[in-house]
């Protein structure tokens, strides 16, 4: 945490933080107000032994415990979402799960996170606390510690409420070859549950739907489920979370990286009824809607049954299902077999998904 004290700025902003309901510019000045915000808000919710040392950097003795044959895995992700709170989650939970999941996609066990908060002048401190509680809960669920953090405050109008950027550190067994490049012809494609819920939940929270639904975001840390999976099925070829761009875009990426064709069966791709109805009404395609708790698993066909069984035992994988197969075919091709027996070509999402007119 940034704790550089400045006497001049401290005297410019003498008001104690307890009197402020909103972020003011002084909270970012690095003086007493910043210090107070760190102690009374950030450390209160995210604090742990390492973070509370209040140093400019975290020294991780724990890394000495990393066995020699393990590889360090690092990922970083910035989180902006409007609105900040939506059914099933908020920007806090998103900022933990997004990075935890990215680290996990190489088969790594995520251990530590750092977090940067960009706050807009005027942002309610009650909302900040709510977001930090959510981050703390998600970090606890994922079994990760936040070991370094920073806060900056922008003038009103120069940012939007709160932006959170997190970096995750973990380690993975050196022998793992899990990567988007590892899909092989003959492999099986498995998905852990229905797609599109996060995208619709956020659209609804924006008030964009014009109707109300019970749809909740699927935002969740997937590292627990992935750890179980890799333990049972060490020969997993690909793990990938289909976030922005949705299932179709992510599978096209994998098909390109691995230079294969992926063939899906439309009937087998799970979509919740409410999500499908919302998409039908708005002219959106659930295959291109964002997810934050979904996992694509590509395994050799001999391991498919065990992978499915393992996923289904975990709360985030109960609806796991095989959705397709990897074929030789042309590189980077994603094909969808429709229930009519016809074949549809799926491409990456072009730009932003636009609701159609009628």
């Amino acid at each position, binding site marked *: 945490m940034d704790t550089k004290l400045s006497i001049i700025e401290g005297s410019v902003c003498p008001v104690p933080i307890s009197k402020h309901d909103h972020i003011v510019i002084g909270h970012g000045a690095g003086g007493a107000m910043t210090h107070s915000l760190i102690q009374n808000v950030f450390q209160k919710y995210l604090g742990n032994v390492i973070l509370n040392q209040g140093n400019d950097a975290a020294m991780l003795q724990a890394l000495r415990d990393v066995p020699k044959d393990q590889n360090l895995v690092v990922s970083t992700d910035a989180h902006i979402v409007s609105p900040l709170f939506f059914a099933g989650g908020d920007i806090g939970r998103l900022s933990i799960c997004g990075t935890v999941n990215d680290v996990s996609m190489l088969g790594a066990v995520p251990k530590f996170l750092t977090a940067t908060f960009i706050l807009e002048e005027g942002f309610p401190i009650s909302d900040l606390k709510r977001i930090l509680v959510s981050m703390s809960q998600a970090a606890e669920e994922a079994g990760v510690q936040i070991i370094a953090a920073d806060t900056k405050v922008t003038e009103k109008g120069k940012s939007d409420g709160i932006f959170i950027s997190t970096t995750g550190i973990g380690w993975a067994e050196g022998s793992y070859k899990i990567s988007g490049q590892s899909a092989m012809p003959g492999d099986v494609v498995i998905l852990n549950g*229905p*797609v599109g819920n996060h995208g619709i939940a956020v659209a609804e929270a924006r008030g*964009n*739907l*014009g109707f109300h639904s019970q749809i909740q975001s699927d935002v969740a840390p997937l590292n627990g489920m992935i750890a179980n999976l890799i333990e049972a099925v060490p020969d997993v070829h690909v793990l990938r979370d289909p976030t922005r761009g949705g299932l179709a875009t992510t599978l096209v990426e994998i098909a390109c990286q691995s230079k294969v064709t992926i063939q899906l069966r*439309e*009937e*087998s*791709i*799970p*979509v*919740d*009824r409410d999500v*499908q109805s919302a998409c*039908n009404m*708005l*002219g959106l395609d*659930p*295959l291109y809607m964002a997810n934050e708790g979904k996992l694509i698993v590509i395994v050799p066909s001999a391991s498919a049954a065990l992978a499915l069984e393992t996923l289904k035992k975990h709360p985030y994988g109960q609806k796991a299902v095989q959705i397709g197969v990897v074929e030789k075919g*042309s590189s*980077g*091709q994603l094909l969808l077999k*429709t*229930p*009519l*027996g*016809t*074949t*549809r*070509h*799926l*491409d990456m999402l*072009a*730009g932003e998904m*636009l*609701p*159609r*007119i*009628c």
Partner: protein
Amino acid sequence: MTASRVSPESIQQTRLVMDEIKRITTKSWNIMEICGGQTHSIMEYGIDQLLPVEINLIHGPGCPVCVTSLELIERALQIAAQPGVIFTSFGDMLRVPGSNSDLFSARAKGADVRIVYSPMDAVRLAKENLDKQVVFFAVGFETTVPAIAASLLHAEKLGLKNFFILPANVLVPPAIHAILQSPGNRVNAFLAAGHVCSIMGYWEYEPIAEKFRTPIVVTGFDPLDLALGILMTVRQLEEGRFEVENAYPRYVTREGNKAAQAIITQVFEPVDRQWRGIGMISKSGLGLREAYQKFDASTRFDIQLAQLQESSHCIAGSILRGMAKPNECPAFGTLCSPTNPLGAPMVSAEGACSAYYRYHKVR
């Protein structure tokens, strides 16, 4: 529930209808689906892959985004760029290229452009922002008109002086008329758009079918609806009949929705309108009646229209008239793609080029 929206029973029935189409087809027929939503469904489900080779589906001009004229898009861009304006539109219109910009780029340069899902949302914005001028881009076929008319009546009731529309609505029957009259026409029959007919009924199409001796079948959007519409069309063609038939009776009656028609007539009247890629079609658009012209953004704002330039590579006009298929365009999938559209049909989900690109592109 899965990504497939169609029940197994419906799939089974669709297959039976397809078999029947194969059984009765003896000659080659060109059938135009007017509506872009149908083009999208045909490509999505691969209906064209199931038809006998004699049946050639031609994709019509029924994509409101595609046919909105360059001039109207330029007007929209200029209005959106004015200070104090909130420019609202259905999302589809934002990426349509004008001669050198689009509404997304206008937004990036600071214009307040917002996607709305209904014209009523724009009225609400006007009510909440009395210091701003809120303009709604009134695009669409007959389907969007009742809601737009209702939004004007609502704005009037609220006494709002800061709500305007840029009228750009177009009508289906004059377009069918224009296609059948064009010298190179090769369309033998039409699938009329089910949702347009749910509002307007299908009585308007009877004189056209009669005059041009061309079957017109009101058709829906699911695979079974489309298969049934095509079957009824082929049956008429094979039997030498030319009637208006209804393959979508669960939503469409001959008279249509009288209340919706009444509100349209109260607010709008037919005007000549330029169709992008096609040209001027007489009485094919809707303009505001005198009593409602105070809501007309095209007269309210100062607009300077310079020389307008279409991309020289784009053959959207031939595609919209049914003279060429998207994959016959040299720019298709190379110079022109959904990420970098040269013409409007590559933008909208209802555009024929976009449907081809999304579902049929073979690398």
